């Protein structure tokens, strides 16, 4: 008996080759996805299989059943992935000597398949009862989410990464994860803030004898007698308390003595603990280490701050039409700008991604995704923009064991966005065109990086004012409009950039913000208050 079993993501063809031996009876069955499930309209079902076992089980079932219902050949094709309404999820063809056996075997096989073969379907709308246990964010195929919902989800699925201690030299931009306190008073001793002459506060004389000279770095405590002074440089440690430094401009030096010309109440001293007392918190958890903060850490001797480790990022740019930017495209080809965009974007966090450029070939992309198993936190897939390519990316992710949380957003540009997760790895499938990349990176990937970093999150959007009219046209969907912003008289002023469609790239040259235009807003006049996201690391 000849048995052929196949599990495929491909559409099952209308015409199937009959099972080889076709004597007497040949019956065929196709299970086609209906437009409703439990009274709810659906657009598609989604099938998942434990493929090696499913194939083995189907083989075993046919062998076992054919003992009682002899047949000559059997062929089974089960489709996995998304199966739209009207297309077949399963094909079974049975050949036997007599129709009774063929019918009986087919019926028995279908019954057993539904009990034992590890294949599962999910409804596009209206989850099966057992699936209600799924977290609400595990979204069914076709579900569309707003930008706000995607941002919320990203915040939920990412958790702050582990910490590490690193040297100050490479800590710029990292997020500090322990509170850093002053170990001693800052400054640690009274220091002169001018070049001048230290005298006792209670000494009202106008002429003083110079008994010593103190430079910055000297440490020479001594008791001054009335009529005595020490010459002291800016930053020099004062020899004791209850002193005043008279500026050198206010005295006349005559050999070993000085005559005070002017004297006021200014003591010209930076007092011990004036900046920070020992034990006082200097940096809180979640602070991004700027060069200023690093200087502060150095000043208190915190040379190995505890920071969040950087996420490991794999970026795969797919497409048959893309070529390295240094090459000249032939007709139909374009330069791959996304790889450069992604690298520079991540560079703001000090992240260097591992980058691959591969043709749109399931095998190649698959091997890249699978290689991501070892410790990649963020998988970025730059795909083509069309629906077919989008589904292609999605299917590859699912086959690699990712759970797809978002397969589409209602915001533009960047509508065909995929957000998926496998264990601790988060994957973003980014639509191919660079402006959509720019938007998705700055909205969603940024949220992931900030959450992973453990930094104190600012709000996703800030408020500014339009410097010019924004003509969003007939925007049926929430839109993120490229703009350039600058601070003017304490207000964030946003100039919308010329932009028609996702394909327009010139706006990338000067965009440093994205204006959030609510669906249906149409035209926003100059002076309107708008929300915007900054397209730069903040």
């Amino acid at each position, binding site marked *: 008996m000849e048995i052929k079993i196949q599990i495929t993501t491909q559409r099952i063809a209308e015409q199937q080759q009959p099972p080889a031996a076709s004597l007497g009876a040949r019956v065929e069955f196709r299970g086609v996805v209906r437009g409703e499930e439990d009274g709810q309209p659906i657009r598609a079902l989604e099938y998942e299989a434990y493929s090696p076992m499913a194939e083995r089980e189907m083989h075993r079932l046919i062998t076992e059943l054919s003992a009682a219902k002899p047949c000559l050949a059997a062929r089974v094709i089960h489709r996995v992935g998304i199966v739209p309404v009207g297309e077949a999820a399963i094909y079974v063809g049975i050949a036997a000597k007599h129709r009774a056996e063929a019918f009986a075997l087919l019926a028995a096989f279908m019954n057993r398949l*539904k009990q034992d073969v590890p294949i599962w379907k999910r409804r596009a709308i209206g989850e099966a009862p057992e699936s209600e246990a799924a977290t609400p964010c595990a979204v069914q195929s076709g579900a569309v989410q707003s930008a706000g919902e995607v941002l919320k989800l990203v915040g939920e699925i990412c958790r702050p990464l582990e910490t590490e201690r690193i040297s100050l030299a490479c800590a710029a931009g990292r997020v500090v994860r322990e509170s850093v306190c002053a170990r001693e008073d800052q400054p640690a001793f009274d220091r002169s803030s001018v070049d001048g002459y230290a005298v006792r506060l209670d000494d009202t004389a106008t002429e003083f004898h110079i008994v010593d000279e103190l430079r910055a770095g000297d440490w020479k405590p001594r008791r001054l007698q009335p009529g005595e002074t020490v010459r002291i440089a800016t930053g020099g440690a004062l020899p004791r308390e209850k002193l005043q430094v008279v500026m050198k401009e206010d005295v006349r030096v005559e050999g070993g003595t000085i005559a005070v010309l002017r004297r006021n109440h200014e003591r010209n001293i930076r007092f011990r603990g004036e900046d920070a007392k020992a034990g006082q918190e200097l940096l809180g958890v979640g602070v991004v280490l700027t060069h200023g903060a690093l200087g502060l850490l150095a000043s208190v001797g915190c040379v190995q701050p505890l920071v969040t480790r950087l996420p490991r990022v794999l970026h795969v740019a797919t497409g048959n039409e893309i070529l390295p930017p240094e090459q000249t495209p032939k007709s139909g080809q374009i330069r791959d700008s996304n790889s450069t965009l992604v690298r520079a974007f991540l560079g703001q966090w000090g992240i260097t991604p591992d980058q691959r450029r591969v043709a749109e070939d399931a095998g190649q992309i698959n091997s890249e995704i699978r290689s991501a198993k070892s410790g990649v936190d963020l998988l970025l897939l730059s795909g083509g923009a069309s629906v077919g390519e989008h589904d292609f990316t999605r299917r590859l992710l699912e086959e690699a064991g*990712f759970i797809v949380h978002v397969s589409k957003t209602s915001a533009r540009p960047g509508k065909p966005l995929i957000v998926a997760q496998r264990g601790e790895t988060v994957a973003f499938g980014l639509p191919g065109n660079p402006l959509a990349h720019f938007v998705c990176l700055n909205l969603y990937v940024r949220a992931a990086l900030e959450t992973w970093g453990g930094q104190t999150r600012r709000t996703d959007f800030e408020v500014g004012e339009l410097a010019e009219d924004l003509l969003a046209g007939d925007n049926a969907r929430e839109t993120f409009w490229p703009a350039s912003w600058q601070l003017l008289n304490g207000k964030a002023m946003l100039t919308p950039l010329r932009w028609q469609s996702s394909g327009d790239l010139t706006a990338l040259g000067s965009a440093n913000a994205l204006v959030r235009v609510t669906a249906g807003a149409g035209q926003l006049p100059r002076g309107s208050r708008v929300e915007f996201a900054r397209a730069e690391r903040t």
Partner: protein
Amino acid sequence: MRILFFAHLKDVTRCAEMNLPCAETDADGLWRALIAVHPGLERFRSSVRFARNSEYVGPEDRFNDADEVALIPPVSGG
């Protein structure tokens, strides 16, 4: 031991597979180890079958660290 999750169990564990370091054990022992890592699996215990290296297991079967074990919730193919 490599553990595979399917269908709604992936939503519970938020992963499709995991590595579970495990000494040789029976189904009860394996459940205890799994629930310790993913407590959310407990309520599905009665409806889930184990498959070891792509075959359903019998009640007496034991598991060891080299096995690939899949948790098979009620199936719905076809």
